[in-house]
């Protein structure tokens, strides 16, 4: 059983650890639906828009309202996008780190135990 565990750990287990980097990134990206956020980055917040009236004043006011709505939408989405990018980076880096230290884990475990006993 131990042999099979070791074979898996340095075989498909390690390959899986690398694959995990991508799946974690994908999960985070899906959670934030980054494609949708980017696609609607400059869209008015919750599609709240004013219909321009006939007079210049009304048209101007509607344009301001819509601009405000778009700015709010942009701010919220941009902030979330920043958080998403950070999370994607963290997930990616964590995945890579995990994949790198993966083959070292058995040695690390034994080393820690030995160091612990030896002092």
């Amino acid at each position, binding site marked *: 059983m131990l042999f099979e565990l070791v074979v898996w750990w340095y075989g498909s287990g390690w390959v899986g650890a690398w694959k995990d980097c991508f799946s974690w990134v994908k999960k985070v990206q899906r959670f934030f639906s980054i494609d949708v956020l980017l696609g609607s980055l400059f869209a008015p917040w*919750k599609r709240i828009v004013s219909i321009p009236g006939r007079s210049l004043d009304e048209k101007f006011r509607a344009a301001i309202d819509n601009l405000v709505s778009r700015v709010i939408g942009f701010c919220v*989405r941009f902030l979330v996008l920043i958080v998403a990018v950070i999370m994607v980076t963290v997930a990616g880096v964590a995945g890579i780190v995990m994949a790198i230290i993966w083959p070292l884990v058995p040695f690390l475990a034994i080393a820690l*135990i030995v160091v612990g006993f030896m002092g």
Partner: protein
Amino acid sequence: MNLNAASHRSKKAKMASRFSSKLQRSLLVFMILLGSVGVVIAVPQTSRRFGYILVGLALLAMMPVLWHKRDLKNLPPRSPAKSLDDMLEAGLLAAVIKTKTLTPQSAWEAATRQWQARFLINHLLLNEQEIRSRLSDKATDMTSVWQAATALAFKDNSDQLDGAALAAGLITGSKDAKQYLASVNLKEEDVIETYHWSKRLSDFFDQPKPYFGGIGRDWAAGFTPTLDQFGANISREIEAGGGHFHTLAHADILDGVVHNLGQGSGGVALVGPLGVGKTGLAFALAQRLLEGRDEALRYYQLISLDASSILSASGRELERIILTLFGEAAHAGNIIIFLDEASLFFGKGAGAFDMSQILLPVLQNRSVKIIGAFTPNDWQRLRAENESLAGQLAVVNITEPDPAVTLKIAQDAALTLEAKSNLLVSYQAVTEAYRLSGQFSAELAYPGKAIAMLEQAVPYAEGKIVTAGSVQSAVEKTKGVKVAKAEAAEADVLLHLEDKIHQRMINQEPAVDVVAAALRRGRAGVSSPNRPTGSFLFLGPTGVGKTELARSLAATYYGNERQMIRLDMTEYQQEADVSRLLDAGGEIEKSLILSIRQQPFSVVLLDEVEKSHPNILNLLLQLLDEGQLTDQTGKPASFRNAIIIATSNAGSAEITGRVAAGDALQNFERPLIDKLISQGVFKAELVNRFDEVVLFRPLTEKELAQVALLMLGEVNKTLGSQNVSVKLTEQALIAVVKAGYDPQFGARPMRRVIQRMVEDAIATKILGGQAKPGTVITLDEKDLAKE
């Protein structure tokens, strides 16, 4: 194919089986505990060494946990399979290779430890031990079992062989086990069908969790507070449930709906009878849009408007709400409005309102996508009344799925029902619901009627199981009909039906015999379920027992004389009378449709049928052929549980004459019928559609005396409460018979004569104090009251 217990996959499966859930939990707790304690105590210098040891141990514990989670737990089948161990589901593989000598008996034990096999056993209500005892204990017999099981899996396009496939292979591959199946009224096909059922559920569990979009999805759409208040968001419902488990009957139709909506069509009309799956299609559409596969409709939400809550508002408020609803949907930009029972939104009657004036511009400028569910008649009405609105909707016709798909849908719905009610719905219950709903729920289409019947059966669950008996009980309680197999006492009644009828009826043996035989066929399930229980044309003179036989049938078969719908067809001689007969909302007594809906289990007596309008006779053709009629609104009414009796006096003069001349009925029965057809009294196609044409002959004097005695029996029954009875001397009986017989009306005047001559005489004696309790009044000819 061989089973290689030493293969890599077999070894892995064996190892995976050692990781019991208890061991997994222990390792996980051990790992977390040691790891966190180790990290904490590794910080201070004094306990650092101990901390290192704990963290090291935690890392070691983590390795088998990860191994099990990422590898052992999910052992996919190897494709293409070279041996059985490549195909067997991991849990089953481990159980099988652990067995020393694999025989059908030990394989059964291994299979029944898997949930898939348990699903099959439980849903078929099989006795696990009984089957085990009937299986062989020879290892050589496993070859045919594997062949049967792999054939099943391949037929299902599956490269995996699970517990249910093995269990099904074991049962269907054993002669003794199949005998057991037959003893519990199951067939090989039922086992195979249940295997496919379990496989669908297994596939649903195995599929990756669907992705319905992240947090940015809803921010791209507008607010919908009013829609949320007056509608039910189907998409959110599906999202909350993590998907919608169902068999889709109309995949091609769904493609059409998506295409229509995606191509910019403002609306789609789903047209199909009630229960055909229009709402189910809306759910399937909602799931598909959530999955985001269709770019033009990606992440669209399907909201079903609730007509009753909208209607709670009135007048201007109602108009304002409807405008707001469509305004919000247009503004949100990701809403498809679903109008279930769309006729409620375009109607004029009670419980409905008309929003076509608001909807038309919405559809014309394509600002909101709309799906309406219509019955064919509602759709036709909308087209007739508002062509411009109907023209804006792309029509998608939905028809009943074929029986095999219907059963699959009902099975999948049964699992949802199980989850809701915490009961087990057996395979037999599903098939019985399918069968009985076809017979007793003509107002709905498949698969809806089968599912509705299963739901009705839930309160009649036996223990925690909905069985075929539960479905039968539900039908018996809700429809007032006996559908379970005839019990001993009832079977006795059916077997001796002729005797029971003759307790009320004198002579006319041929008529009684054919009617009794038809009833026995109906009750034993031999006759066609798509036609009336029986249909008869009674020919003969007046007063010979035609109506009495119909009444006796109602009393004997349906339990009550009042279970009879009697229509005097002389009242339906005009063309306009056809609509009265099919009226869905008028006088119950005059409308055949309303009467049968109220009393579906009845004798329908159509007196003097030949006098009705030819169009009514044409309707009768449909009724006898299909067992149903359609009312003026297009809804069917079933006559499949009724006995149809049409009576006629046509040919009675000839019957009387030839019987008087000593001719037997059977000698001139066929020539007489042919003569009536050639004279144009009846159409040949009508006569041929009746199960039997029965000739009634005039009653002899002796039989009339028996009729009189029967009626006297009824009088005695009434007098029973006063403990008085009455007897007629021979002379008195002759006098009554003489007075009660009329050459034109047969025995019809007899009841009136008994009333006047006998009952009046008794009344006089009772009032005169001559009839004290316990007295038997004997009436002689002179005692009878004058006619």
